[in-house]
């Protein structure tokens, strides 16, 4: 299962504000986005994140997998994370 690298210099604030120090770009993550970002930072792979979210939230697996995949594509597009 795919795993991602989050640069050590990246941090997300309590409010979900994310600053990329090497490009100056900023993003705002919502509550769920922030939670997923923390899981990625903690080294969880996609499958583990899906399992974690299924345990936490009332959502069907196909919808979750699709949303997570979209979110990860966005994070990669903005160079926030890289595939390991």
């Amino acid at each position, binding site marked *: 299962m795919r795993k991602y690298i989050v640069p050590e*210099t990246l941090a997300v604030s309590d409010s979900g504000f994310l600053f990329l*120090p*090497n*490009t*100056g770009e900023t993003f705002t993550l919502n509550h769920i986005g922030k939670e997923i970002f923390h899981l990625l930072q903690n080294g969880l792979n996609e499958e583990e994140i899906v399992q974690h979210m299924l345990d936490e939230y009332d959502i069907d697996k196909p919808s979750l997998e699709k949303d997570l995949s979209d979110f990860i594509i966005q994070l990669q597009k903005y160079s926030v994370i890289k595939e390991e």
Partner: protein
Amino acid sequence: MKIAVTGLNATDNPGPGVPVIRCLKESKEYDFDIIGLFYDSLDPGIYMENICSACYMIPYPSSGLNELFDRLKVIHEKEKFDIIIPTLDSELYGFVKLQDKLAELGIKTFLPTAAQLNIRSKDMLFEFCASNQIKAPKNILAGSVKDIYSISEKFDYPVVIKGIFYDAYIVNNFEEAVSAFHKIRAKWGNPIIVQEYLKGDEFNVVALGDGNGQMIGAVPMRKLYITDKGKGWAGITINDNRLIELSRKVIEKIKWRSGMELEFIKSAETGEYYLLEINPRFPAWTFLAPAAGQNLPVLMIKLMLGEEVIPLTEYTIGTIFVRSSWDLITDIKTFEQIASFGEIKWTK
């Protein structure tokens, strides 16, 4: 210590005079008294509070060096200033030629040489970059409309049409290229630079070279908001060592002596930095540098005075500037004094 600074045109295309003065006034070691030198009686920097203790009009560079020197001499007799900092590109060749005569009056400068100015000029920069393994967009010089016809043989549209000192237009076809060529030639003369257009984000570095090849400090910034004139109206300090090392390389190779601004574009395609321009003076966003921990104009004064200066490498990442428009109010008597006599002294 009294310092004269030019470039008080804090307009929508701002000169660096006011931000350089603000940096000097931030100094905790020195209490600088600032004399403003202006070209237009409506230059906003004249009217700003706590910026200059006195302001004097000086003649445009096109009036000739003798006229400029004579005027500076008169101002010096009144104000006895110790240092002069020209901050506009178009002034620099003149001040380089005048620096010995200014030194005879006891006025210090810290300027690049004419040869250094030439190396980084917009028509020579590509050659410099090519011979030093620095990436830069390709360009050709256009002296007449005939040269515009050859654009499509050398580049794909869009291309950038640039003036030798100022102005740049992105053009998408031959007709737009001809129109931009005429506009720029009418304003700034020949040569016109036709440059390969690169898609990507703009990054700038403000830096200071000591004239012996050493970089004294550098702060990189990404423009967050760009006006329709291409001016950065907001920016943020960033952490990308490639920009610092590229700036260091340029300063080492040219042995740059003075403040400078390096303009880069990060190719959206490859992620590599291309050097677009080297501006031979501090930029209008210089005040971001002391805000992030490097007061480069003050360090330049220290170099000028022959003091020991330890190069700075640290700065605060994520420091932001947001430029603003601010209406200054004055009265007709004050304006009369400035417009009719070309000088004003502000009482503290």
